């Protein structure tokens, strides 16, 4: 994904499945940052997220012999983590604790500017308006944006994670794109002179 030549994830997964501990280490090291980020996007509670990731890997290792076929290990582990987080969360909110102060004012799956890749074609202003618009979306749609545009997962994989049908993901994406398009200033996005001199192939083409 980042252009580096790496051992394919499926190979690492199979090594782990075969009981190779190095395979388990590689899998863990490779996916830990992404899983941590995902967990933190749902619950802003580092201990909960870290412990749940441990639980997921311990379980996968223990059950490695009976695991069914896994096409995308990352999607599989995200699904497992999501389930684990909700299963574990009660313990971290302390049994029948009366929360005196809000756990976190940050809502799940909200984004900040430095999380977005800087792209020369898109001006600061447009980026800001896009992030604000995404953060205004319902939580489910924000999670979809994260799974699709951060992890680059396929709709079928996203459907597994969210535990819905693939068609539901398609519909959700349409609603997401619909509300983004209606809220963004389309003229600004279609304009070709906000590039501050940066050459952008599309516009060279368009102007011909």
């Amino acid at each position, binding site marked *: 994904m980042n252009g580096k030549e790496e051992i394919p994830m499926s190979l690492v997964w199979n090594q782990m499945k075969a009981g190779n501990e190095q395979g388990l280490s590689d899998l863990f090291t490779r996916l830990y940052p992404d899983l941590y980020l995902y967990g933190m996007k749902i619950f802003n509670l580092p201990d909960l997220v870290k412990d749940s990731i441990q639980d997921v890997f311990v379980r996968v290792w223990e059950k490695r012999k009976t695991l069914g076929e896994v096409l995308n290990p990352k999607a599989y582990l995200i699904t497992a983590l999501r389930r684990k987080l909700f299963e574990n969360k009660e313990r971290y909110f302390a049994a029948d604790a009366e929360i005196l102060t809000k*756990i976190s004012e940050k809502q799940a799956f909200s984004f900040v500017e430095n999380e977005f890749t800087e792209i020369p074609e*898109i001006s600061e202003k447009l980026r800001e308006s896009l992030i604000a618009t995404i953060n205004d979306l319902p939580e489910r749609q924000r999670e979809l944006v994260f799974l699709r545009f951060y992890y680059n997962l396929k709709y079928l994989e996203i459907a597994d994670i969210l535990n819905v049908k693939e068609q539901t993901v398609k519909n959700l994406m349409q609603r997401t794109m619909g509300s983004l398009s209606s809220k963004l200033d389309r003229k600004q996005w279609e304009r070709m002179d906000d590039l501050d001199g940066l050459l952008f192939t599309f516009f060279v083409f368009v102007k011909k």
Partner: protein
Amino acid sequence: MEPEGKLIKLLADETFQDAIRTSKDATAEEQKALMISYGIRAEELAYAYKLLTAMKLESVQPDAAEVAYALARLKSQVHEKQKGNGRQTSSKDKILLLITRVAAVLAFPLLLTSIYLFYQTNSTDITLGEEQTAENYNTFFASPGAKTQVVLPDGSLVWLNSGSSLSCPPVFSAKLRRVHLEGEAYFEVVSNKQVPMLVETDHLSVKVYGTKFNVNAFVDEEIIETTLVEGKVTMIPANSRKEYALEPGYAAQYRIDGNEITAWRVEDMDAFTGWKDGKLLFRNEQFSDIVNDLERWYNVDIELKDPSLGRLNLYATFVDESIEQVFSILSSSIPIKVDYPARKRQADGSYARRKIVVSRDHNRIIN
């Protein structure tokens, strides 16, 4: 279909998204092909490209030490489980485990301390998991006028404020790290999700898994104050089974007589924890409370001739100042006169605790 609806449908289409997002270096011909195959105008293509690429999120930079630590934790969990199943780990596995352990230890010197102390104290013949009785607890004191730092058996650090004491077992049980506090202490607790630490005071317990916080529970005061710097703690009043959670940056006050807890956001954390660094901070506090703190801090008796002085509220910060300097600063902002009577010699030849007498200065009217 309406053109707008059609574009939205396209934008939400998996194959279209993939095609557009990988078209960064597309040639003019390829762009034209995209327009034709999807039946869109140039502006629409520009919009789709900008929108779909702008939504790309940056991948996170993994923190190597954090990942190494997490991996070592996973491995020890996996190995423990295997041992439990009666399986032998191969020598290769052991070497691997050793390597990852070393990596984790390097990244977290605190952990090293804890392991070291654990093995050291473990050599005494106390079996893990056995509940400790209060008799064999060790007690640490910070005498009035002094502050003490204590390292607990698990490597956690505790700063004891003047006139405070802390008791703990020589080895913590496998289920609970239990300590008893009288007075005020600042804790930096080594994280262990499986074994919480319980800081007991006479009227309230604070439960933590690994965090930085301050507890103020002097017996002569009717409130217990907990201030959380990092992590999470819960408070359990002695006569209740309810837990009250506190979030970082907040302080909570438990009123012993009223049996009620209130919390508020702390603006100046130093006012609660600065004492461990030798700073005395008072933020809009009653002079009577300040006097209590000064007595402990400097190991002196302070007599307020006029009790109404105690109700004055003030702000003050002192760093490494003598008691005389402190009072000369205080008397510039409130109408007090301070006397330092000579120390009395007791029958046994020793001197009594130093006494300071504070009275109202009637020649001055402030505010």
